[in-house]
């Protein structure tokens, strides 16, 4: 019996000894995780066991989605090169680089960003619009570089339809307020942008204000133009065009990426802060 008791005590003692390193390891792991999340140094290790639960870190571990989904559309792609400069600059490649820089900036600001293309593909205009139309709270920003124009300037455009022709209205009669989309009715695909034109104009104004500050010589007003890519987007939609691929130094095109990203990020914040809704 004495032997049996000694054996049991020995086994319990062994078990306790095995548990201690596990606790220490757990405490160290927790401290490491906190360091990664908060960027602070862990407290010095003590012989005291770590508390079973610690308060969650205050620093944001991941961006919080504070705005709408932003569908970024690098124009052209594939066999459609877009504008070509004398120095070999090709619009489709440059706008894709811009889209990556803008995406990083927007994600840092907490936006969720979706690209219509992330490689040298060329989705159709309707595919690009359809990508935006799958989200509810979304804005669409198409990126372009022109062949001509004053180098180093930038313009934001929104779609502007012609005056309505004679005949039945294109939008369902359930529309009740100007510039408000029909709540539960169908939109004509070719005119899906029509109920959102006012929102698009406000978005273009917000972006243009920021672009004009960062690209000297840019206009302070926006223009309504019939841009095919925007016509079927059922959300606020703009196209931003920089000038131009005809630069003498191709590096100057890369240098435009950062101010463009900052202007779009700030412009979207301004747009959101001025009472935007998904509809307007």
């Amino acid at each position: 019996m004495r032997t049996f008791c000694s054996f049991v005590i020995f086994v319990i003692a062994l078990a306790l000894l095995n548990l201690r390193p596990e606790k220490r390891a757990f405490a160290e792991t927790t401290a490491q995780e906190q360091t990664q999340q908060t960027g602070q140094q862990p407290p010095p290790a003590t012989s005291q066991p770590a508390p079973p639960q610690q308060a969650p870190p205050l620093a944001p571990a991941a961006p919080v989605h504070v705005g709408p989904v932003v569908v970024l559309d690098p124009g052209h792609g594939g066999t459609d090169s877009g504008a070509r400069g004398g120095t070999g600059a090709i619009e489709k490649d440059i706008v894709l680089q811009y889209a990556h820089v803008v995406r990083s900036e927007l994600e840092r600001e907490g936006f969720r960003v979706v690209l219509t293309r992330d490689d040298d593909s060329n989705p159709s205009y309707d595919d690009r619009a359809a990508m935006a139309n799958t989200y509810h709270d979304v804005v669409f920003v198409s990126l372009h570089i022109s062949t001509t124009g004053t180098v180093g300037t930038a313009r934001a455009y929104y779609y502007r339809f012609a005056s309505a022709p004679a005949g039945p209205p294109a939008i369902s009669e359930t529309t009740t307020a100007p510039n408000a989309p029909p709540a539960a009715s169908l939109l004509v695909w070719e005119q899906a942008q029509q109920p959102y034109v006012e929102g698009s104009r406000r978005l273009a104004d917000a972006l243009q204000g920021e672009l004009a500050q960062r690209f000297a010589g840019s206009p302070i007003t926006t223009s309504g133009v019939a841009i095919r890519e925007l016509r079927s987007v059922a959300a606020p939609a703009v196209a931003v065009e920089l000038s131009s691929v005809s630069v003498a130094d191709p590096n100057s095109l890369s240098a435009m990426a950062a101010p463009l990203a900052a202007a779009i990020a700030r412009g979207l914040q301004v747009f959101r802060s001025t009472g935007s809704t998904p509809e307007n």
Partner: protein
Amino acid sequence: MPRNIKFALSILGIAVLIGLVSLRGMHERIQHLSENPKSEDQARREVLAPPISTPTDVKVQAKIFWAAGADRVAPVMVQLSLSADAVQRSKQVLEELISSPPTPEQRTLPADATILGFYILSDGTAIADFSDALVTEMPSGISSETMAVDSIAQTLESNVASLHRLKILIHGQEVETLAGHIDLTGFFDLNPVPPQSPAPAQGTASPPAPNSAAAPASNPQRH
């Protein structure tokens, strides 16, 4: 020296002289052609599209809209003989727009573009049919394409009062865009007809005032 050899040598000499003269002329001609390249479209236009003149032509001050800076068009007063017939008059002003910009920088449409046809429907819709060069040689870009369409629309609007809308076709076909941006599937306003009844409850029934003189002309309306 035998007589026949003398004869052969003199003929040879004359031939060399003629050859030298012709070579020089040919060289000058080649140089002239290389300095003034003329595309197939331009050459065809000279043959197929001589200046349009009709019995009703009257000299007037026409307003032709060419580029005025990097992103807008502005009218230039040009004395032209214009027909009383709206179709012929439209062709005449468009021909002038394409062929005679005051400076190369003021050009808004490719030099090779030609007007293949022009039609006016009873409701005032103008249909302008251009050659492929209008799209294939157009510099890609929202601003350049906007200026191109604005120059066409505003030139027609200012010189042919009976037109209300414009449709642009390329070689008889509807195309999606001019050069990747501007929507050509719809219509462009020209002297829009004022609404005769209260506007329907549509978002853009009363569009905001344009920000540029060119804006109203670049807004197609899809049917």
